[in-house]
């Protein structure tokens, strides 16, 4: 698929970086990560926090891997990060992505939360050169036409 077709996709649905048809994320059945999904639906970025260790943890787990305290709270963190690693994907491995390559996936570390990392898409032109260490900020991408709706945390360069 050509980049031109990707541009057309972005032009037609600027609200979503990737086309519909990918799996909708759902909370664990035991409720471990429910607070995260509820928070990002309200445009608030949260991660786990252990008050015994005064340290953030991500991805979610029932226990602090440092001190083994159970049931960590979720705390709001600054929705800013920097690029820790990245990949430009050219070969689609899912039918929904047949017409949307290339696209960018980034690993973002959050300096305001002990450098925990999150995977997301980098919004904007996927062919634009990228540098590890670039500063980015969160964009809350709401998928309201799915039942039940969900939100994804995406990233854009600071200043874009």
């Amino acid at each position, binding site marked *: 698929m050509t980049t031109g077709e990707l541009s057309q996709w972005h032009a037609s649905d600027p609200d979503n970086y*990737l086309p519909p048809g*990918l*799996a*909708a*994320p*759902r*909370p*664990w*059945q035991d409720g471990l990560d429910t607070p995260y999904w509820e928070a990002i639906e309200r445009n608030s970025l949260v991660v786990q926090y252990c008050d015994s260790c005064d340290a953030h943890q*991500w*991805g*979610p*787990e029932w226990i602090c*891997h440092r001190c083994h305290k159970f049931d960590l709270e979720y705390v709001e963190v600054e929705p800013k990060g920097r690029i*820790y*690693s*990245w*990949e*430009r*994907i*050219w*070969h689609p*491995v*899912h*039918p929904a*992505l047949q017409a*949307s390559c*290339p*696209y960018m*996936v980034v*690993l973002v570390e959050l300096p305001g939360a002990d450098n*925990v*990392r*999150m*995977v*997301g*898409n980098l919004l904007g032109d996927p062919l634009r050169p990228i540098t*590890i260490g670039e500063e980015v900020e969160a964009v809350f991408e709401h998928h309201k036409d799915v039942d039940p709706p969900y939100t*994804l945390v995406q990233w854009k360069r600071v200043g874009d």
Partner: protein
Amino acid sequence: MSDHPMRGKAAISGLGETKYYKRAMAPDGEFKMCLESILLACEDAGIDPRDIDGFCSYSNERSSPDRIAAALDIKEMRLSNMFWGGGGGGGSGALANAVSAIISGQCEVVVVYRALAQGQFGRFGQGAVVNEINNDGKWTAPFGLMSPAQSFAMRVRRFMHENGVQQEALRAISMASYHHAQQNPRAVMHGRELTEEIYDQSRWIVEPFHLFDCCMENDGAAAIIVTSVERARDLKPTPAVVLAAAQGSTARNQAPAHNADIYATSNFQHVGKRLYEIAGVTPNDIDVSQVYENFTGGVMMSIVEHGLCSADEVNDIFTLENFKSTGKLPINTSGGNLAECYMHGLELIIEAARQIRGQSPNQVSDAEVALVASGPMVTPVSSCILGVDR
């Protein structure tokens, strides 16, 4: 150093491989190929298949020991063992489990086997088509990150960034596998030469992986017979003595959403160190290495983390000339996962044993110690060292 209880006690005594096919090209079913590879390994060793008393495999092998045992009229099964997790990272781990069963007296003849027909069952390289996801895949799949290549490219890019590695280093790994495959008639890519130009112009799968940085998808089966060294000496082939086989992981390597403490790693930092301690050899003693290529970037980190070269030497040392069987750092002398067959890395252990026997299609002269690094960047990983009988 005191003698390690695992060192030099067991040996690979028989090797069996079906013909290797491109995906969906095998005329036989996966289970039939599994039986064929086991019988070939027994024939090679010169033992009666009914004397097999242990079964070891990995990566949720579909051909189960209960069915094999019934099909082959196994007289007395004593071990049915599956290495848990890690996909192709379990290859040398399955061997380690077989060796442990021999040393502990549980078994006398163990078969380590893997049958894989991706043309008949699911392909590893495709994302699942599902409406919802509530496992750890939820942190990546909604962003279009779902295949192994996509999962590992992120780690490899970070390693290249931290160490200033150039794309040419990955290219040399790919070219080494293709170079060796040209001397190996069993190789699926026999007769398909790879040049720098073909590599450079090949399409990206996911940066930094071109098409030729990614393993093939194949159909086939492979098996090895493991016995005590004493028993191996009474058998027909030259024993490939297991000097060491180790498995494991660094701390929190698979922490969710790519939050491993040490991220840019093949996950061999601990296993590699322990492997040499068990074997009683150093990286300088390694004559030839088979390094699992799920993707070339994993080979790069596995070589570094097995001490064969330092991270800041990668750009200089990773050349086709050095990687050839005649070079300073010979790797993947059968063509490996990239160009011989993706038999989930069991074909790499077989090639290491061939080097010890002196029967490789790209024989390294006077090869006495051979390293195998099984699938990198997963948890757990495993690796082994084979040697000549002394």
